[in-house]
Structure formats: C-alpha cells, structure tokens
C-alpha cells in the first residue's frame, strides 16, 4: 500500500485508537474518514447525534429512506443490530459517559487540552451543535486537524484565543505531521509523520512540546 499522507494519514492514525466494539462518535469530514482505515477485526458502534446507534455507510440513491439520516441531514443507513432514538436519548449516551471516544475537527486546540471549534466571533457562527456535550461527556476526545492554518499559523497553541468548545478535555491530537498525547504536564510528541523531523514539528508548533527519548513514526 502506498504511504498515506495528509488527511488520509490523520484518519488512519485516529482509527488506530479504537478497539473492537467501541462506541464512537465521529464528526463530519476527516473524523468520519476514520471508518475507511479501521484495523482488521475492529468493528465500531457509530453514534449519530440525531439518535442512531450503529450508523452505516451512505446508501446509494436507489436505497435511501427519507427517514434515515445522519447528523448533517444527509442520507444514512443503519447496520444490523443498530437502533434509533430521540435526540434527547442520544445525548444521554454522549453526556452520560457511555461513548468511548469522539473524533473532532477544530479551529484551535491548546497544550492544556482545551478546544475551540464553534465560532469566530463576528465572522463564522455555525453554532456548537453537539460538540460541547461531546467534550463534557466523552472519555477520549481525539482532535483530528491540519497542523497549521492556510497562512502557516500553528493551530496547536499555548492557549486558545477563540471561544472554547471544551475546557481541558482533549486527550489526543493528530495532525498530518504528528501525534501529540495531552498529559497533565503538557503535549508529549509521541509520533512524527514520514517526511518530518522532530525539529520540523517544534518549528511549526506554537505550543510547548515535550519530546521524550523515543518518538515513533506515525502511520
């Protein structure tokens, strides 16, 4: 298999966090791409905020049911054994600590594990949807993000400057360049993507980074 890069590499690395049978919520975009890279023998229960346990792949237009949709309102399917609920019960799963992991995209994330992904005041106001509840209730919050803005600015900061979605809740940060574990001491550089060096990562990251003796290769 060709070496993965960019967003495919992010999705592939995030997918390695999951164990067979995990109950997981994946955000729209790169997070949802994780399902394409699950390690062999790993099957997940995917949760969708609208109230699905066991979301399946997008159906073809011949197979759509107008009453089966995903969190974004697009056509969806439900795997055998899956089930449906009202929106309120969906958040019992999320806030009640029943979900093992969530993968979220972001605008900013910082070395204390705080995340800001719901608004740029005066410019971008999509609203927070279910993201704040995921941050409050899910044990493992994995951030899947480009390392830098288009203008080259680091998205991994000492402290978020945008309004927060969650305070000190992120456990792992995966970018196309590296994987950081968020620890009480700060960000620990665990793996670096092929083509990058530890020095490259330090140069493009605003946050303080702890470099352990052994840094692995991200795959």
């Amino acid at each position: 298999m060709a070496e993965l890069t960019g967003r495919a590499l992010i999705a592939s690395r995030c997918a390695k966090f999951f164990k067979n049978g995990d109950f997981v919520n994946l955000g729209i975009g790169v997070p949802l791409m994780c399902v394409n890279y699950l390690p062999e023998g790993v099957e997940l229960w995917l949760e969708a905020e609208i109230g699905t346990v066991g979301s399946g792949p997008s159906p073809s237009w011949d197979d759509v049911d107008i009453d089966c949709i995903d969190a974004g309102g697009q056509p969806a399917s439900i795997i055998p054994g899956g089930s449906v609920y009202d929106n309120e019960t969906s958040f019992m799963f999320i806030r009640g600590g029943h979900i093992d992991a969530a993968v979220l995209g972001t605008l900013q994330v910082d070395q204390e594990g705080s995340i800001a992904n719901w608004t740029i005041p005066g410019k971008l106001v999509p609203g927070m949807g279910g993201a704040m509840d995921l941050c409050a209730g899910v044990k493992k919050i994995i951030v899947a993000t480009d390392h830098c803005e288009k203008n080259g600015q680091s998205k991994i900061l000492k402290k978020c400057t945008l309004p927060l979605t969650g305070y000190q809740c992120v456990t792992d940060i995966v970018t196309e360049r590296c994987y950081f574990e968020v620890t009480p001491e700060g960000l620990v550089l665990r793996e670096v993507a092929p083509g990058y060096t530890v020095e490259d990562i330090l140069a493009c990251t605003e946050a303080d980074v702890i470099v352990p003796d052994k840094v692995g290769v991200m795959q």
Partner: protein
Amino acid sequence: MLSKVVSKEEALSKIHDGQTIMFGDWHGEFAADEIIDGMLEKGVKDIHAIAVSAGMPDQGVGKLIREKRVKTLVTTHIALNPLARDQMFAGELDIEFCPQGTWSERIRCGGAGLGGCLTPTGVGTEVENGKQKLTINGKEYLLEMPLHADVSLIKATKADTAGNLYFHLNSRATNSTMAFAGDFVIAEVEEVVEVGELGPEEIHVPAPIVDMVYVRTGEKRPLCPMWQRAKAKAEAKAREKAEGGNK
C-alpha cells in the same frame, strides 16, 4: 374515542403572531411542512422559535426565517441557513445558541415539570456566562432553565385518530420530546389509522399528549429540497461520466 383529526385551517387557527413555537425537525427534515406553508400564507409573524437548527432557507422553520417571520430563535446550529446568520448580524433575529444536549434536556424539563437541569456541558466556556454554577460531589455543573412553548408543531409518520403517534426510523429526532413541552400540540402526519392499529409498543407519544392531528394532503413523503439537489447533482455527474466513457 374522540377524534383529533382536523383540517389545516383548524390547525392554523391555534397559531398566532407573537407565540413561542417549538418546531420539531432536523435541519428542516421531518418538519410539519404543510402547516409551516400555511403559516407563511396566513402571515403569522413575530414568532419566538425553538428549533434544533435554523433549517435551510427552503426547509422547515428556515422558510419562516427566510420571510422574516421569526423574531427570536433558541437553537444549536445555523450553518445550513446563511439567512439566519445575515439576519442575526443585521440585528433582525435574536439567536440564543445552546449546546444541543442542553437544548434537548431543557425541552425535556419543560415537558416534565422540572425547574431546570444541572449539566457539566459548557463549564469553562462562555456558555456559563450569567448562569448559576453548582458544585456537586466535587464536580461543577451549570443550572440550565426549562424551555416551554405555547404551541409544539411536530411531524410524525403515523397517527391514529385518537392522537397516538408513531415515528419511522430517525424521524423521531426532536419531535417526540417537544410534544410534551407545548401547551398545545399539533402533529402533522403522513397517514392516519384507526385506533387499535398502532400497537402499544409502536406508540412513541401517547394520545392524551396530542391536541390535534393534521393529515398531509400533498405528497406524503417528498424528498426534501437538500436531497433533491444532491440527487440531481449525483445524476448529472453519473451522466457526465457515462458520456465521457463513450468518447
């Protein structure tokens, strides 16, 4: 058993300017489309809306926003309706953003006789501004207040004449919880059946909770505008590919 099946005019007679109305839906899918169209025609305005999102400009509550009939909106997400954002920036629409689990639970509180709920969601963010914070067993929670409406306007797949409601797959969405949190509950349905045809386990909202049932007269299960556009795009792409392959 008393029949709650009414005409569109009877349903609309309960909807007035200035009311607080809950709109059950998901981005304008699973919405009471025919009654919403009736509200547009009737000219209902100054609505205080509660809906999970601002819908889309041509879907659900989004249509009322498009025509500037909505004054305030308590919601979780408006990304699919740029008109809501424009009206908010222009000071025409007052939007209160609420985390979705909190929003949902506030509605449940409104329907369950609770004075509010304590949630960890939003602690440490600007959502906690102006709210009471309580520490329980060492963990911080925000006190969130109930949401209640004059009218809950919901959509179900099927009703019986007594007002029992059944929802197919995801269409339950925000509809069933809202049924409990409105003083007056109007359900638009695709189909009505006789009492007894819906079994006890198929009934998601029981008859005593529902005041009126309106049965769609137009297309029962139309593809929503967002899907119509997506499907047309996919078909055009497939045609292009086929033609390209014939060259």
